[in-house]
């Protein structure tokens, strides 16, 4: 997500609850917020709802906004929290992948069954680990961006990614798959 500079008067008006300023910020940032969320939840329909939920939280918190920190990073942080809340409440069964890699993209040395079980096991990981691993490994977002969005250090992101992979390997081994 790009960090876009806002005219300071728009940010100041937004901070005071001005709806026109909020609309201007919404229109400027909705694509970036949606793009970040859909990378975490991997569901376009849910991402649309979560984008609205994110801006609803932003609207409620307008008085706490610090114009000096920039709107983009603040919005991304709130979007990440909304996406994590969604992942925590979603049933694991919902993660049976519609988004499995197509055969054209996949390594022929890895069977479809292994890929399906990997995707399913990944979907059952704790939300915080899954989000960090999704953004870092699948979406290949910079660790610095992920850390800012999750409100943790880059070192902590790396730990979460490592823990996600370790749990994934453990679950696959339990199913008799040796990665």
């Amino acid at each position, binding site marked *: 997500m790009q960090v876009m500079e806002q005219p300071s008067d728009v940010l100041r008006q937004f901070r005071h609850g001005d709806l026109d300023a909020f609309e201007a910020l919404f229109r400027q940032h909705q694509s970036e917020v949606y793009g970040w969320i859909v990378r975490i939840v991997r569901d376009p329909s849910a991402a649309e709802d979560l984008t609205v939920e994110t801006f609803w939280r932003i609207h409620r918190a307008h008085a706490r906004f610090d114009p000096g920190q920039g709107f983009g990073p603040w919005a991304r942080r709130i979007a990440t929290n909304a996406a994590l809340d969604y992942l925590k409440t979603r049933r694991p069964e919902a993660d049976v992948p519609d*988004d499995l890699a197509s055969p054209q993209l996949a390594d022929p040395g890895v069977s479809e069954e292994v890929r399906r079980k*990997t995707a399913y096991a990944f979907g059952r990981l704790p939300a915080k680990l899954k989000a960090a691993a999704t953004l870092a490994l699948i979406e290949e977002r910079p660790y610095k961006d992920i850390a800012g969005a999750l409100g943790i250090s880059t070192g902590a992101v790396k730990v979460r990614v490592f823990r996600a992979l370790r749990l994934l390997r453990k679950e696959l081994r339990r199913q008799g798959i040796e990665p």
Partner: protein
Amino acid sequence: MNEHEQKRMEQLLKQSLPPISVLAATEPQRDLWPAMVRRLEARSLAVPWFDWALLAAVVAWFALFPGTISLLFFHL
């Protein structure tokens, strides 16, 4: 898990789940502002739970002590 195993797991994960941009647009397919407006309006019409609780308490009070209704009208 050593470094080699970690790399192997990373590759397996990437083989199993491609980036979302391969599967779907990473921009919304419609303007979400109308949905945002509906959300704002719905919330502004909503009555806070404590208002309902207060109303329920008043109704319960008058049901238990009907004689106090006249007292209320006297003060109004």
